[in-house]
């Protein structure tokens, strides 16, 4: 700290704790101690309080104890002369501030003043609170658990290199937009809160029409500093979700964030007492603070990995204009936190980055579309010999978009020819699937689907900036080289809008899709000698290991066996290592010597044995990024499957978020397993325990989004009506009701052998 910051932070902390005390007293008097308090979209109670104290707060009456603890962390401000040390005391004040801030937000939820209302504002993806307004008219409040989990894998694999908590307001609207664009360009998740004299960066961005929400990686929390607590609550939850930590392991949670979560605070505009106090709280997490105004600097390191507090007074940043200064400021933030950025320079006339992946192009804003209802679009990546590819050649064959009327649709084919000494035909689908992510990264471009069900839209805004069909080629060329350079040496792209060529290649593509489908169907665990590990998430969940086989993909759904194979080629020392199956121990349960030894060593002795096909006996562990949770329902002699999109109650008496606490963190808990949703369709899905017929309950989200796949599974299992026999949240959320339902429909699980 510095004495100046210590003085102001401790003063701010005292003020906020006092404010929380006053609010709490009033709430206790008006609502009573038994009133329920909660953040509505997380199962982690009040996450900061849970993380730091281990107390699961759900009643107002539990808060005075917490606040008393916060008060005990407050110290006097340092004296003018003969001061005693203040760093530890200031950090304590920061922690008190966070606890008090979370209490204040909880009370605001109780009184209905959270999430903060903002008439006319529309979230681009965010928490829908049960007030009937959907995503309109309010800021987001805390991040919900579902979003936290779905971002998890991106945070660990580096696609999302870190998060920024912006507090305050930028010098101008223009600067605010530029800062956000710079962060988005680097795929940094950005949380917005706070204001300067009533004006928040959220106002600035909203005025400039910047889309804010989960979809654009920019989440508006609230226009006061107190709402910045959600950023740190998010940090605390990521340690609980992915780090296998339990509430109350305060020091571990803080160290986890220091070592693994690349986050920083960017204070825009004048820093007041409360902001200093909140900053002291953030420093406890190892998050540095950067300000665009003149504040004291704290350059020595230790609580944070690099500098603690940096002052970059706006007028002193070098740069020709405000835009350049904004760029430098963001650059510095990244440097200070040691955020690792991989960025491909993609030469297109629109902003480009993963933060734009979630953007939606609405019909009214659409310049042109390919695929969907009115036309057809397909993508086909094929491996060819080196001399058949002219690297960098991009051809558009047929009319370009300017020849189509506004809002119109035409057929499109994208043919990508790649060659490389380490390329294998098995990698074709792996690379082809990337087209979706690559093309979606353009701002104003929307890509949905794959293969011959691709559906692409270009917005009017993007077209106005000069985006044409050729730019699809530019994007793909740049990204394949930067992301897959070690297996792809040459890339050539042909884009067909010409109907004849299009039809010709569509036929070839379909033949290839069929061939690949057959290859995948043939690719069984028995036919390979190697499985692959995935320890990507160990940066977050240090003891978790995925063993990925052809018939069991990674629990995040992002890595199947072929992906791992390609990934190993790209980075032979990376997180996906081949695991020779080795001597068979019990193939029916999925035990081989190789995976056993690998998991022992890679889990640092936490897991001694792992069965590939059982949920009951040594089930595979999970990090926290799983797409769904499978859990035994003993009364039904079967299992239920809850998808992470499903917020409802389940027959286990817990929601997905609560269950996730049991399933994650790299701990083996028989009877509970986090899995990728496509594993549900595998013949090896808990085959030891009876397979898919054990599924007695499943979230409707899964039933609906994978209807075709499950139909095939039901047929394979010899019970074509099986899916209809499986209950879901619309049928029941209680075990008793479930049993009644299963009896009624004659679910096979009831007559199967006992699971125990």
């Amino acid at each position, binding site marked *: *700290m*510095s*004495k*100046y910051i*210590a003085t102001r932070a401790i003063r701010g902390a005292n003020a906020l704790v006092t404010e929380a005390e006053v609010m709490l007293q009033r709430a206790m008097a008006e609502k009573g101690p038994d009133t329920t308090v909660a953040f509505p979209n997380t199962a982690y109670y009040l996450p900061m309080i849970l993380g*730091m104290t281990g107390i699961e707060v759900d009643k107002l009456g539990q808060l005075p104890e917490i606040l008393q603890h916060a008060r005990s*962390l407050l110290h006097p401000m*340092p004296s003018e*002369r*003969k*001061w*005693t*040390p*203040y*760093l*530890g*005391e*200031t*950090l*304590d004040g*920061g*922690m008190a501030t966070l606890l008090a801030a979370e209490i204040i937000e909880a009370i605001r939820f109780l009184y209905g003043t959270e999430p903060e209302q903002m008439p006319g504002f529309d979230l681009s993806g965010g928490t829908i609170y049960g007030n009937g307004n959907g995503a309109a008219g309010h800021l987001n409040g805390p991040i919900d658990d579902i979003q936290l989990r779905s971002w998890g894998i991106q945070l660990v694999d580096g696609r999302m290199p870190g998060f920024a908590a912006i507090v305050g307001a930028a*010098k101008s609207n223009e600067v605010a937009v530029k800062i956000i664009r710079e962060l988005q360009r680097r795929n940094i998740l950005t949380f917005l809160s706070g204001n300067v004299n009533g004006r928040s960066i959220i106002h600035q961005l909203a005025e400039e029409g910047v889309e804010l929400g989960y979809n654009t990686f920019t989440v508006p929390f609230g226009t006061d500093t107190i709402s910045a607590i959600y950023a740190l609550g998010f940090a605390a939850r990521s340690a609980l979700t992915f780090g296998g930590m339990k509430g109350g392991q*305060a*020091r571990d949670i*803080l*160290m986890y964030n220091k070592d693994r979560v690349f986050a920083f605070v960017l204070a825009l505009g*004048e820093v007041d007492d409360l902001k200093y106090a909140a900053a002291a709280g953030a420093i*406890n997490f190892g998050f540095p603070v950067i300000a*665009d*105004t*003149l*504040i*004291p*600097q*704290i*350059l*020595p*390191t*230790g*609580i944070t990995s690099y500098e*603690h507090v940096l002052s970059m*007074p*706006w*007028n*002193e940043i*070098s740069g020709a204009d405000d835009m350049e200064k904004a760029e430098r400021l963001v650059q510095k933030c990244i440097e200070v936190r040691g955020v690792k950025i991989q960025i491909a320079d993609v030469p297109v006339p629109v902003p480009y980055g993963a933060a734009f992946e979630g953007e939606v192009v609405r019909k009214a804003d659409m310049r042109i579309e390919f695929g969907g209802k009115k036309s057809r679009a397909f993508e086909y990546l094929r491996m060819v010999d080196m001399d058949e590819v002219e690297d960098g050649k991009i051809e558009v064959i047929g009319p370009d978009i300017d020849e189509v009327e506004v809002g119109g649709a035409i057929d499109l084919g994208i043919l990508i020819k790649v060659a490389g000494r380490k390329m294998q035909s098995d990698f074709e689908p792996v690379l082809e699937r990337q087209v979706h992510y690559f093309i979606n990264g353009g701002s104003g471009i929307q890509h949905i689907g794959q293969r011959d069900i691709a559906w692409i839209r270009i917005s009017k805004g993007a077209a106005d900036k000069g985006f044409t069909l050729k730019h699809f080629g530019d994007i793909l060329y740049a990204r394949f080289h930067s992301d897959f350079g070690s297996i792809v040496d040459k890339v050539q792209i042909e884009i067909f809008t010409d109907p004849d060529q299009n039809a010709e290649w569509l036929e070839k593509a379909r033949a290839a899709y069929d061939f690949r489908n057959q290859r995948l169907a043939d690719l069984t665990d028995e036919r390979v000698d190697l499985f692959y590990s995935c320890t990507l998430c160990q940066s977050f969940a240090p003891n978790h290991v995925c063993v990925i086989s052809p018939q069991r993909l990674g629990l995040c759904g992002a890595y199947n066996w072929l992906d791992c194979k390609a990934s190993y080629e790209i980075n032979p020392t990376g997180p996906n290592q081949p695991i020779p199956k080795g001597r068979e121990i019990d193939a029916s349960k999925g035990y081989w010597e190789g995976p056993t030894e690998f998991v022992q060593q890679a889990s640092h002795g936490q897991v001694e044995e792992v069965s590939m096909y059982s949920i009951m006996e040594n089930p595979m562990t999970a990090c926290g990024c799983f797409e769904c949770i499978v859990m035994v329902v003993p009364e039904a002699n079967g299992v239920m499957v809850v998808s992470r999109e499903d917020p409802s109650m389940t027959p286990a008496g817990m929601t997905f978020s609560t269950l996730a606490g049991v399933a994650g963190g790299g701990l083996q808990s028989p009877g509970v397993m986090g899995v990728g949703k496509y594993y549900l369709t595998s013949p090896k899905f808990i085959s030891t325990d009876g397979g898919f017929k054990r599924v007695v309950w499943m979230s409707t989200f899964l039933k609906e989004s994978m209807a075709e796949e499950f139909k095939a599974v039901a047929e394979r299992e010899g019970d074509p009506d099986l899916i209809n026999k499986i209950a879901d949240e619309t049928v029941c959320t209680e075990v008793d009701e479930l049993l009644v339902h299963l009896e009624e429909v004659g679910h096979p699980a009831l007559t199967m052998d006992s699971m125990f």
Partner: protein
Amino acid sequence: MAKKERTMDERTIDPASKEMLIRADELGLGTAFHRAEAMPPCNIGAAGMCCKFCGMGPCRLTKDGSTGVCGATIDTIQARNLVRAIAAGSAAHSDHGRDMAFTLKAVANGETEGYVLRDIAKLRTVAAFYDIPIEGRSPEEIANDLADLYIAQFGQQKGELAPIRRATEKRQKLWRELGVVPRGIDREVVESLHRTHMGDDQHVPHLLEQAVRTSMTDGWGGSIIATDIADILFGTPAPVVGQANLGVLKDDMVNVVVHGHEPLLSQMMVVASQDPEIIEYAEAAGAKGVNMSGICCTANEILVRQGVPAAGNFLQQELAILTGAVEAMVVDVQCIMQALVSLSENFHTKVITTSPKVRITNATHIEFNEHKALTIAKDILKVAIDNYKNRGETQIPDVRSDLVPGFSHEYINYMLGGTYRSSFRPLNDAIMSGRIRGVAAIVGCNNPRSTQDHFHTYVTKELLKQDVLVVETGCGAIAAAKLGLLLGEAGLDKVGPGLREICETIGIPPVLHMGSCVDNSRILTVLTQMAEEGGLGDDIDQIPAVGLAPEWMSEKALAIATYCVASGAYVIFGGSSPLSGMPDRVSDSDLVLNYLSVEWENLYGGKLEFINEADEMVQKTLEHIDKKRAALKLPEYDASKFGKSGDARMGELESLSFEEQQKALYGVPA
């Protein structure tokens, strides 16, 4: 050797001391300063070349090849002298620890008066370290077990001293390999006395191995025990504001100066001095109350815990009496000059001895015991108050400095990260980056053979300018305090740019006062924790750190030096070496001296050297620090890279009007 009276500037750099020495001259009274001038040291004894261990001698070995009557060579005699000194020094610290352990036991059994188990957290931490069960047990039960364990360390005959396990793994392994782990505290001291008796151990490496083993009963035995228990009974120190120097004596209050080393009585006297009964009693005697202050390490014990002022360090014990304002000087053990009593006869001051171990002819003896501690403390204060009426003319120097002491290793841990993130990481980081070049522990006594406080403060000030963080204990700490170096303010303008950033970040003085001389055990703990934190090697000998005792004089200092060497530290002693030999006249008379430097470094990674020049001490310190930095592959020290943190610009900003501030907030365009 001609007797030469020194100038005031040669005697001391402390203005309060000077004023009292002038007064002594005016009154025709002698002090240690005067006696040192009148009594040149025996040059043969000073070189360690005299043996008086048996009736065949004393033997003076002043020629090439000469031996004692028994045939003992110069190096054997020097080594035996050193072993005996270390045995005495270790015995002093350890006996202090023993008294603490017995008191803890008595407190746990409810047999004392006035004491409580104050720091339960520390009790539990310490007990848990030794695998004493703590869950579900009362503090008294835990304290009882801990006291038993600690008491057992003294009489233990076999095995290993338990606190050894507090060293780094690597150091423990080294000690075991070298066979120097002490078996029991008393056993090693007794064996040292035995081995140095006429006709026993007469092989230098073997003797010096026992020197190490014995010293470790102090640093990794008695001293750790003393510190732990003092913290448990009186609270683990945390920073407080205090004052130091003779100016803390009060004209209108009953001045009671505690002097010596143990906190058992002095802590109780602090409590008693605030008792309404005593205040009333003092007021009835015409005083405004009782003003407690301390000299030497007893001063440090109550200074670091309660901020009770320190009247001075070792060489100021007589000077305090010379003020004529001290009603009673209450002493316990160690470093108490017999001269106090005869000097006090010229004033009204009563010198009161309290330890069953220490009586001084003609002093008042009021024996202390923990069972009636508070009553005895009050009785002593009443004797002092009764004496107030006898006070004659006084002269209290108007010299005192503020200071912020109280840096226990527990607090250092806290201050570097708060309740939730406490660790040594920021300190290690600061050293690794080069903001802090290294650490110097400057400890030890005063010695009237050198200018009082000069070496201490000169070396301290020079090292601070070189970005060396200084930790201090004992009389050295009081010396620095008197110069204002123990204040946060000193961290802003008396230090190099990198150290300034650290001081300003944490709010610490550049010199950290860690307690009394038994609290050197805290320094060992800090160094161990630094090694365990990572980034600075895996043992103390790799850390860029040096220990210095620039004005040493007691046998305890030699014990401290030796256990620090055994722990891996480079130790520099100022002043003369007790085994310097006379290498210019008698060949091989410096074998032992060289052994302590060269061989000990080979064995332990630490070494002991005697340097009589302040600049050379600074230079050697920096050389060693830079050598260790290089070995760790840390960046070369470069002060110009640092200094950009801090509040300096905020002052400018705050001096502006509100409108101007709003503009200036975004800085000044380049």
